[in-house]
């Protein structure tokens, strides 16, 4: 009994080191105020019809204050040409409206919105305002830190608009969808922190789903990933997205994601 007590005490005293810097979704937490984040997302997605689509999505992220952050992102891909062409761009804002921090846990909630412009041909039933459709997305995220694991979930409404006058959204297809995500992440290394220069290793797994309102078609993907944080300032994410099931037509659901990110602290006064 005494040993159980000691073990419990030791466990309680240990600093909780979970991670919530997810690869395929955003957590409810914001980046620090007055900081600038630079990110590039590279996607190598296998086409259902054979071959690979390459996506390049450079992104700038700005911590405006403790409650607000904003992103601006460009979408480039090779899916319509042999080379790389620009498909569109988007702006994103997130507002953290609830935060309960304690010594050994925290719970946060945030609301977000994205508006995207895209000029590429619409070739799938899946709605994706990140790189495929013009449109907007509005959602809510909740993130809970629980001992050594961070769990985050989001729900959102996504609406597709015409991809310019040349690529109108097909009237016969559902143009709005309900999205849901569930993410869990865990810090594997280091076991104990000593300096900011230690490399952190995180593993994560995420579930990403969509249901098209109107026709009820849906998909669910699983996305495991590995993340390295170098010098507490740079991030390297490698993830794999795999379709678990789908009743809708999708162009290239499976593939490898490589994300690089660098944070510049206190850039803005």
């Amino acid at each position, binding site marked *: 009994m005494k040993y159980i007590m000691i073990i419990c005490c030791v466990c309680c005293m240990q*600093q*909780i*080191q*979970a*991670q*919530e*810097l997810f690869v395929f979704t955003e957590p409810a*937490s*914001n*980046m*620090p*105020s*007055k*900081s600038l984040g630079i990110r590039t997302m590279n996607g190598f997605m296998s086409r259902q019809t054979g071959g690979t689509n390459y996506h390049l999505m450079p992104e700038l992220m700005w*911590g405006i*204050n*403790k409650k607000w952050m904003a992103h601006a992102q460009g979408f480039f891909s090779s899916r319509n040409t042999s080379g790389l062409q620009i498909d569109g761009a988007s702006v994103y804002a997130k507002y*953290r409206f609830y*935060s*309960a*921090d*304690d*010594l050994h846990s*925290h719970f946060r909630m945030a609301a977000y919105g994205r508006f995207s412009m895209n000029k590429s041909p619409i070739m799938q039933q899946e709605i994706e305002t990140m790189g495929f459709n013009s449109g907007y997305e509005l959602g809510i995220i909740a993130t809970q*830190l629980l001992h050594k694991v*961070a769990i985050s979930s989001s729900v959102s409404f996504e609406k597709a608009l015409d991809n310019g006058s040349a690529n109108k959204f097909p009237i016969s297809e559902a143009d709005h969808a309900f999205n849901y995500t569930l993410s869990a992440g865990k*810090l594997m290394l280091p076991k*104990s*922190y*000593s*300096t*900011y220069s*230690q490399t*952190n290793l995180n593993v994560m797994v995420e579930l990403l789903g969509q249901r098209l309102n109107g026709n009820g078609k849906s998909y669910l993907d699983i996305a495991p990933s590995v993340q390295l*944080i170098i010098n*507490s*300032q740079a*991030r390297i994410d490698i993830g794999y997205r795999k379709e678990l099931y789908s009743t809708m037509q999708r162009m290239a659901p499976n593939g490898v994601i490589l994300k690089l990110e660098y*944070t510049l*602290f*206190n850039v803005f006064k």
Partner: protein
Amino acid sequence: MKNIIKFIIALLIIVPAQAQISKAELIATGLTCSMCSKATYKQLQSIPGVEKITTDLNSSSFIIQYKPGTAVNVADIRKKVQDAGFSVGSLVVDMNLKNVAAANNSSFSYNNSSFIFVETTAKSLHGIVKLKLLDKGFITDKEFKQLSKNAKQYPSYNSQVNAFHVKPI
């Protein structure tokens, strides 16, 4: 003569104020990774008058050392931690006091703010004293709720804007 005037001026400058903060020990809450901790560290570094910050990443604690003579605004620390996206779980300052009579609801003034004693047994404080801040945003929400319940005996608690409530530890 000139030298004597210079000496007197120098003496006036180095004479410490009635109260002086030399060090602040902070425990942040909500930190979940070294990246978060570094963000907090960078924010704290931007506070004027900070000489050195030492951190313990495992306990999310930061020890802030001020340059001598700095007029410290403790609310800056809270603001910077919140700007980084986190919260203050505990803040203890090292304050050099000169014969301050401490008792519940008694106060002294430092850098245009009142420091009011709560949860304090009456005594005279002299020399470097550790004072724990007990206002909202300087302790965990749980502690704040608990203290608010017992706060009837401290009329100023959770009411005055420019006052800090402290307890010698």
